């Protein structure tokens, strides 16, 4: 009996242990609001599956695009009398939380991108097909855009709003002053860059602190050398990374590296845009959104761009022009008003309303108002119109994990020392694509 008492005495926790456990529990409790804050990203949405209105999730959180979408929803409400409740989420959060967003209680319609990034979720059954919408708006779009809006099952999912081409941007006045000519071939580009370097200018502006901008150079070199289809197949991992064609891209790039801004890894694209504005760099390969940085209208007027020069026989018929637009969530597919809203966005009328506020992009619907185009807008639009193939940028055409976890470190280390291990890229790609 006494031994039993002893046992209970040792089992009896000291006051300190109890306090400690209580403390840990309290810390756990304190953690709850944080956890809730982490997961509760979908916001107020669950209402309005009736046809009197719809909810619209927007990742366009910057001031200008935000007001532009506001103009679109206002026009829709004015036209149909249906109410649109917009939930704006900061765009990085929106993109990072898309997985839990689509599985939780997503809005009826939401902003997203064309390409693999859209097809992936369509393939997982998280989006609503909108073939009926495309029957009314199909005539407004070119074949390239229609192809970009199609899911892996052949059904339509996406309504394009605008896109923007990637190209070399430069200041006309600087080029006129120094007598530089627009290069048509890669060799001409290299000799032009050498000339600029001799003139004491950094030939090609470059920024890769954020990791993704360098993918633009990779994509263009890849498409010019190996063609559009190879780009798509490589991004979908139907082609191996461990092959001569991929090595050739990096080898070609190596010839360009000495001309690209050596400070690339420490600056953002905004910094590089400023360097172009200050005429410290001769040209800069980026999307046309670079012009958002040029607030001085005199500078903006002085900006021109040219398409990435020709390298091999693939010519220049592919252009990198990521498309932004709208998707319907699975739940939103049951809401007639949401379908009407997507159909509305596919009209020149809606895209004009958007472009009136945000004019750094090019409306995708045929018949959209081009009278307010600046010469630069017009050139961008013509480039896209003349392209046989439109690619979506590496991080939209490829598996996000491949783009974020593999390509960013690989490209950054390539920029650093000009070496890349394609065998390792293939090994990583194999694991990541297999995990999907």
């Amino acid at each position: 009996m006494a031994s039993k008492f002893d046992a209970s005495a040792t089992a009896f926790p000291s006051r300190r242990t109890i306090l400690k456990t209580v403390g840990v529990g309290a810390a756990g409790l304190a953690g709850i609001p944080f956890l809730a804050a982490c997961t509760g990203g979908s916001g107020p949405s669950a209402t309005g599956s009736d046809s009197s209105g719809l909810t619209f999730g927007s990742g366009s959180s910057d001031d200008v695009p935000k007001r532009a979408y506001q103009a679109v929803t206002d026009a829709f409400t004015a036209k149909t009398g249906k109410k649109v409740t917009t939930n704006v989420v900061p765009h990085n959060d929106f993109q990072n939380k898309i997985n839990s967003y689509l599985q939780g209680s997503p809005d009826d319609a939401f902003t997203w991108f064309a390409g693999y990034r859209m097809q992936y979720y369509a393939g997982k059954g998280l989006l609503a097909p909108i073939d009926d919408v495309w029957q009314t708006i199909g005539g407004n779009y070119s074949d390239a855009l229609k192809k970009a809006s199609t899911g892996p099952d052949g059904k339509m999912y996406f309504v394009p709003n605008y896109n923007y081409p990637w190209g070399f941007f430069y200041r006309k006045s600087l080029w006129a002053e120094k007598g530089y000519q627009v290069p048509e071939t890669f060799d001409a580009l290299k000799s032009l860059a050498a000339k600029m370097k001799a003139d004491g200018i950094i030939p090609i502006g470059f920024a890769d602190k954020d990791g993704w901008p360098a993918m633009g150079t990779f994509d263009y070199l890849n498409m010019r050398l190996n063609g559009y289809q190879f780009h798509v197949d490589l991004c979908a991992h139907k082609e191996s990374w461990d092959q001569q064609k991929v090595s050739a891209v990096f080898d070609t790039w190596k010839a360009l590296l000495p001309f690209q801004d050596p400070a690339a890894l420490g600056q953002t694209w905004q910094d590089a845009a400023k360097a172009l504005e200050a005429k410290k760099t001769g040209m800069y390969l980026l999307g046309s959104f670079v012009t958002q940085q040029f607030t001085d209208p005199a500078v903006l007027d002085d900006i021109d761009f040219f398409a990435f020069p020709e390298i091999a026989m693939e010519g220049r018929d592919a252009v990198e022009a990521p498309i932004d637009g709208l998707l319907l969530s699975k739940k939103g597919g049951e809401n007639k008003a949401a379908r009407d809203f997507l159909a509305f966005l596919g009209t020149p009328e809606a895209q004009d309303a958007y472009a009136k506020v945000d004019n750094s992009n090019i409306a995708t619907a045929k018949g959209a108002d081009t009278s307010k185009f600046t010469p630069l807008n017009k050139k961008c639009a013509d480039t896209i119109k003349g392209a046989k193939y439109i690619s979506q940028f590496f991080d939209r055409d490829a598996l996000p994990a491949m783009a974020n976890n593999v390509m960013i470190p690989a490209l950054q280390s390539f920029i650093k020392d000009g070496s890349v291990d394609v065998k390792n890229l293939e090994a990583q790609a194999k694991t990541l694509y297999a995990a999907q």
Partner: protein
Amino acid sequence: MSSTAQELIPPEAREPAGSRPAKSGRVRRLSGRDKLVLSLMVGIPTLIELALVWLPTLMSVGLSFTRWNGLDLADIRPAGGENYQFISQDYPPFWPAVQHNLLWLLFLALIATPLGLLLAVLLDQNIRGSKIYQSIFFAPVMLSLALIGIIWQLFYQRDNGLLNFLLGTAGTPKAVDWFGDSSVNMWAAMIAATWRHAGYVMLLYLAGLKGVDPSLKEAAAIDGASAVQTFFRVVFPAMRPINIVIVVITIIESLRAFDVVYVINRGTNGLEMLSALVIQNLVGEGQVIGVGSALAVVLLVISLVPIVFYLSRTFGKENQA
């Protein structure tokens, strides 16, 4: 000496003296109400701890042996040890991250922590404005992440940062890109981390120093010990419980080092750290749950070593007493 030091430990860190009689077995029987209250007090926190800490931990361990896209539970497929093989053989940022974590540990242990101790000793000397200095050195601990990013950006910027300006290299091609150059950015980040860590350590040691009995120092002085000897032979050993806390804090801080590198460039380009890799692989669009979980498990196993060491020391001592 050691028994004297025992008496000098601040009461909250001391062994619970009251529990000693209980250990010898003369315990009164607990009433039913006591038992109920006790089991509630122990049970609820335990359940919370299980649900919020150990359940996710075990799930992470489980997921690290699978492939999953994070969407549909039916998509989970077993993968054996492939994720571990992947991170150790095919994932280039992994080994640099391990090295950086170790480097971080050495830097905090050899530079930041001694610096904090030095600050504490200096501020303990009753110099004028001591409170003001304390607040200044402690302020970084309280600042938010975003603010820290901005402050160090201003300091380290290539073209118009303060540091390059002071070096006279601002705006010239010789200007060092402290955050972008992967041969220096880890050191820049560690200095930023030191700035926070030293303030934290300082505060803990200040509390510890206040708890040291002044008569001990007087006795040492009478015995003819110099100030340095007094500190290292008498005061420092007397702060043993604080020292253990600091060691554990330093190790844990270096293992979960995350915020500073994440604000700089999300832990890429020379700033790879295990915790940043876990976030990159587990959260967000680029999520690969299997790989991210495997990284998290590696981090967990490494962190368990000092934690177990610490707990076994504290509890081991308690049982001895």
